[in-house]
């Protein structure tokens, strides 16, 4: 299908270009049908209610003192959450991906656990620790915004550690070693060699964390005790409680504008930092721990403790029943009649979760790899470059837009044949894949961009067709990030609640949905089972991700 790329750079659409356009079609179709259409539908309902434009709400909503307050709170909390996650995540990524020590795999797994815990469970665990009667009650922080920030870090640490770590572990150590040999102090080596090399990954991770934080919803309400409102909580309130679609549309537009602006700044910063990186197979291997690593180890240890405290209190409580230690809540997970709140056993729900996650992961990876390849190309013409940048941003948008808007939008736009998908079970994995897609892209794109394009050109000059050139040059560096992204997509799908609860059929619930049902009913056993189910979900996720990462050993050996 594809021929060797001609060397002329004047031709308008080269076969490579055509291939890339074809590659873009599927992801774009997905984005249009499952994101642009629903969101557009909701915006139109709000701003064009009776078939005529009614923009009277725009100045009114924007002029409210509350709107300003909410916007400032959202942006500053998301910004602080991003900076803090990066500050704490980078030392941890260094320890987990650059140093060799026993138990490293286990710590990597622990760091990922929070990522899939349902918000409602995390809310209960955080509040149990911080309520006046809790272990950390003496801090007096229950309901304080600092706790919301801590939860942001708790959830998003995995994003930073994995995105940055994935880049870091492939870096050739020689550049750093040369700098050190030339007399640079460790700090100088870090600032002049390591940091620039990591910058694209850092910005990628920061972008993701910012989007996650700015659309966080359950955490803000639960941990803030309703005292704090974000743009996201306002949209939820206006849409689901007041049916004020005008107000919701204005806030959604505001959200959209802010996200687009943030993405533009991130893209600009990232592009300036991108560079071709030397990658060394054996020379990138982690080194043993040295005495000089102590400070970074201390920071990493403290961060792991922050993660462990709520996680271990969750595990401990799931193992308690009737005033003593017991596995009762775990044995109940396999029993369909264990709780009146459930129609199926938790293990059946786990099966549903895993099946859905497989589908979602496949969708997210197929789309994600296409998008990552696309956005990592740097066409010579400015127009084409802008188009690529635009695409890159477009696929990040779903993370920055309210799930309520998208969910309600599904109902009012995907309601007629051939797209009457509202009650179709395929929507669940698709919705989960849309959430996982940005993570996949952001894990792969920085790595692909760091591949020297001259290598591809050299392969082409030696007679390889574009596909073959890409495969030979890019596949080897991509194996690790690809596996990491797969694991991540799987985890996103397993933990996804917002869209799933909205779309899943009650006879086939996933584990987060079941946990929510259990924890919303009275009874110590329901609570115990919910906590046990959350622990199980976390362990299954960590195990699957561990297995996926193990695949790399054989895969890397092949190259």
């Amino acid at each position, binding site marked *: 299908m594809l021929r060797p790329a001609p060397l002329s750079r004047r031709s308008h659409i080269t076969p490579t270009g055509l291939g890339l356009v074809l590659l873009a079609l599927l992801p774009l179709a997905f984005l249009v049908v499952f994101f642009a259409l629903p969101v557009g539908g909701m915006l139109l*309902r709000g701003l064009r209610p009776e078939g005529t434009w009614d923009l009277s709400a725009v100045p009114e909503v924007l002029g409210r003192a509350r709107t300003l307050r909410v916007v400032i709170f959202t942006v500053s909390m998301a910004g602080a959450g991003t900076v803090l996650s990066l500050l704490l995540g980078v030392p941890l990524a260094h320890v987990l991906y650059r140093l060799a020590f026993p138990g490293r795999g286990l710590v990597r797994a622990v760091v990922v656990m929070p990522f899939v815990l349902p918000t*409602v469970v995390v*809310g*209960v665990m955080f*509040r149990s620790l911080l*309520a006046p*009667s*809790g272990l950390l009650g003496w801090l007096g922080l229950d309901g304080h915004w600092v706790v919301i920030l801590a939860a942001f870090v708790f959830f998003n640490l995995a994003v930073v550690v994995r995105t940055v770590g994935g880049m870091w572990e492939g870096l050739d150590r020689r550049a750093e070693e040369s700098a050190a040999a030339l007399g640079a102090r460790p700090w100088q080596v870090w600032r002049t060699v390591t940091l620039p090399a990591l910058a694209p990954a850092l910005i990628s991770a920061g972008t993701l964390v910012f989007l996650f934080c700015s659309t966080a919803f*359950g955490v803000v*309400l*639960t941990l*803030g*005790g*309703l*005292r704090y409102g974000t743009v996201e909580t306002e949209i939820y*309130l206006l849409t*689901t*409680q*007041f*049916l004020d679609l005008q107000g919701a549309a204005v806030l959604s537009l505001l959200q959209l504008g802010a996200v687009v602006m943030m993405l533009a700044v991130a893209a600009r910063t990232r592009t300036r930092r991108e560079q071709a990186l030397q990658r060394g197979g054996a020379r990138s291997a982690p080194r043993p721990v040295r005495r000089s690593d102590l400070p970074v180890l201390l920071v990493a240890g403290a961060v792991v403790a922050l993660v462990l405290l709520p996680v271990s209190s969750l595990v401990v409580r799931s193992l308690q029943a*009737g005033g003593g230690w017991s596995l009762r809540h775990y044995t109940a997970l396999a029993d369909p009649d264990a709780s*009146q709140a459930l*129609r199926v056993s938790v293990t059946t729900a786990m099966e*549903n979760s*895993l*099946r859905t996650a*497989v*589908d979602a992961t*496949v969708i997210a990876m197929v789309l994600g790899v296409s998008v990552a390849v696309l956005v990592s190309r740097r066409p010579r013409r400015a127009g084409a470059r802008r188009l690529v940048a635009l695409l890159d941003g477009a696929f990040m948008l779903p993370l920055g837009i309210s799930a309520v808007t998208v969910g*309600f939008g599904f*109902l*009012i736009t995907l*309601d*007629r044949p051939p797209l009457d998908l*509202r*009650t*179709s*079970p395929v929507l*669940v*994995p698709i919705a989960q894949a849309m959430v996982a897609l940005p993570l996949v892209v952001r894990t792969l794109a920085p790595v692909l961009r760091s591949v020297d394009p001259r290598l591809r050109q050299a392969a082409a000059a030696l007679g390889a067709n574009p596909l073959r050139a890409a495969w030979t040059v890019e596949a080897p560096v991509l194996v690790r990030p690809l596996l990491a992204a797969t694991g991540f997509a799987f985890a996103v799908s397993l933990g996804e609640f917002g869209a799933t*609860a*909205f779309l*899943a*059929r*009650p*006879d*086939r619930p996933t584990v987060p949905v079941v946990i*929510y*049902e259990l*924890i*919303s*009913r*009275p*009874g*110590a056993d329901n*609570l115990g089972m919910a906590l046990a189910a959350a622990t199980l979900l976390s362990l299954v996720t960590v195990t699957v991700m561990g297995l996926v990462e193990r*695949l790399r050993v054989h*895969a890397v050996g*092949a*190259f």
Partner: protein
Amino acid sequence: MDRSIRAHTALSATVLLALAACSTGGGSGEESEQEPATGDGAATSEPAGGTAEAGGEVVLVTHDSFTLPDELIEGFSQQTGYELTVQTVGDAGALVNQLVLTQDSPIGDVAFGVDNTFASRAANEGVFAPYSPELPEGAEQHALAGEGAEVLTPVDFGDVCVNIDDTWFAEEGIDPPATLQDLTDPTYDGLFVTPGASTSSPGLAFLLATIGEFGEDGWQDYWRELMANGTKVTSGWTDAYTVDFTAGGGDGDRPIVLSYASSPPFTIPEDGGEPTTSALLETCFRQVEYAGVLEGAANPEGGQALVDYLLTDEVQAAIPNAMYVFPVAEDVELPEVWSRWAKVAEDPITVDPDEVEANREEWVREWADIATG
């Protein structure tokens, strides 16, 4: 290099095969082989079970607290020949708003779970088609007034009431509160926790209870006093009950919580005996849940059959254990723990549904300023 590509391709192929074996598609096939009569797959093109010749599928749209035992869901298709598919769409408020938004092409035939705080919105917007079946004994008192009665049928009700930890009050030697007014008494300073009206359905019910009790102009002062008396507001029922309440499974420090009249039976100790908590029956707001056939339903006859079915003795009798609320049919026997320990308010506080609809947004905003400002 060629060898490595082949090795990699082989690996990918293996992984792909493994994936194909365990996707959603694979699951749906297996499941329908195992339990052909659950109604699973009715939304897809799979052939319906053997009893379906009477009329195909009925889709029930409901909120996420809806559950019924599988036997009853199968029972519906056995009795009527329709296959029942259940579609859940968020909480009670989200349910009504989705019904309003999708009324041009409804997502189902019947909606269940519209409660009396949202009923007016649904009825006024013309979401429902007229259908008023004969009600079982005792259900009439829960019916809506006016036009609402022609489209919505009461199915169950629950009282949202202040609950107290009797053990705590006995140990501390303090007389427990009994009324809403008592909660502002300094004796109970810092002891009450409630979910918020803006984010929680029982929270909204409690706000309405205070509006019904103290009047449209009096509730604001009551709430100011309540907040001044150290009341804690949480986002949802879950964390009020399981984190802050002293008897909700966690080790909270507040012995007074907003919950349901049906909550106390869940605090019966494992070795039996009495519940350690009780509901204050003078503080209750009654939530009634309704079902109705949707305007523009694809299968209106099937929808009517489902509304009838929800009122049968067998469904009514299963409601308490499945959904933690009371059936509207009086002569249905309650589960034993319920008839002993779950009391119903004799004279619950009420607010006219039309009033609620007209003022909800303003009230909730005003409430938010006072309670979460």
